[in-house]
């Protein structure tokens, strides 16, 4: 977040950004997300298979980004929302990732809050809409 990512770079990472595709290490079995060239856990393998993650997890830790502290591509968002929550999400498959939280009141956000990934606009740059994941509190199924 906050660093310029060129369109070609964004393009290459679309599977991870649009549907949380991670890489499962063929040696140690751990899931690398975001994907890496060499497994960041065993540091010994470059053999992976692609696995889409479930998008389920919980808030590991979080912070509130104040309007003035927002990176330039989030200026619009800061104007609209004032400030907004960003969290480290502990995914059920193991990886921890940083993402914005949506559809949640400040007082509801706490460590351990169960969340799930949603597909949203992250920001716009060079006229191109950058879509990706954010997280919302888990929407439980209807009672039968």
């Amino acid at each position, binding site marked *: 977040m906050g660093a310029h990512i060129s369109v070609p770079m964004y393009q290459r990472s679309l*599977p991870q950004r*649009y549907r949380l595709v991670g890489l499962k290490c063929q040696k140690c079995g751990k899931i690398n997300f975001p994907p890496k060239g060499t497994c960041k856990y065993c540091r010994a393998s470059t053999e992976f298979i692609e696995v889409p993650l479930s998008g389920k997890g919980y808030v590991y830790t979080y912070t509130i980004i104040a309007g003035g502290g927002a990176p330039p591509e989030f200026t*619009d968002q800061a104007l*609209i929302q004032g400030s907004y929550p960003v969290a480290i999400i502990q995914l059920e498959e193991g990886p921890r990732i940083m993402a914005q939280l949506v559809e949640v009141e400040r007082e509801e956000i706490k460590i351990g809050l169960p969340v799930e990934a*949603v*597909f949203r606009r*992250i920001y716009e740059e060079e006229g191109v809409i950058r879509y990706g994941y954010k997280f919302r509190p888990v929407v439980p199924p*209807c009672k039968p």
Partner: protein
Amino acid sequence: MTMGIQSYGVYLPYLRIKADEYVKAWGACAAGISEKTVPDFDEDSITMSVAAAREILDLTPQATKNIAFLAVASTSFPYVEKATSTTLIQALGLNDNIFTSEHTTSTAAGLEALLAAWRYLETQKEFGKTALITVADAPQARAWDTLEHGLGAGAVAFLLTKENPIAVMEGASSAAQESLGERYRRTGETAVHDLGVREYTSETFLELCRRAAQNLLKELGRSPGDYHYLIVGQHDARLPQTLGRKLGFEEEKIKPGLLYSSIGDTGAASALLSLAHILDQARPEEKILLLAYGSGAKAIALSLKVTAEIADHRPTHTVNYWLERKKYLDYTRYLKVRRQIV
């Protein structure tokens, strides 16, 4: 071969605004709503389409690999040029060799997408192939235009099949004719307009819908009495009921499908969101007549018959569930979220 709907999914944004907020801001709310859905600042017809489709595919992930056709529809796609279906292919992990079709320019686009998928599947001999349709909309108008008061947002997705559908698609009929002065949006504009000649445009709506419906009834050898539900795309509060009366449908057959007063005008998604709402409650053997209308102008009628399969294919979240899950905005916040003042 029995063509029809295999499953469906719905998405309504979390945010709402009440008609009272318009009363406070403008002295009156020009739309017959009690409240309406509001897409968040980071939502658009693509993100909502993904959300509705995921309601289907999260429940039945194995269905993904059988999808051979994707039809998308909206009057408010974020790009006027650049494929929209490809964003969904990536976000949903669909096969990269599927055929796609994209439907826009009028609120009839949603039903057009459904018909395109139907026609495609009909030509396919291979067993087990399905078609995915996503329809999402979030039409916008200028804040000072009373047309803006009723505009909402929502999305719905359907998976079509040739084997054991929950609702059989029995037939469709169309009425189309050049008509000026109704709702329009020129290239380069973000806001829809109309010329405020409601009485005249209402007549076109009623006439074309009547023709489409009556042609279909004639074709199928049916009368309104054979149907349990009449669904009409709701772009205002009153016309669907007026049409129902003119066609000879009792009030009780129209009411169950009406969503306008709680979500507003959801554009191309309106008629099909109401279809999802009816499927949430329908029982086997019940028949549904559905009408979608688009300015300019065209009306399409579709006849459906619910089957016994419906009991085993209920969605994870019903329309009623989404209606209850909400947070209210005040008018100033609404203007910001809809980027009217930011």
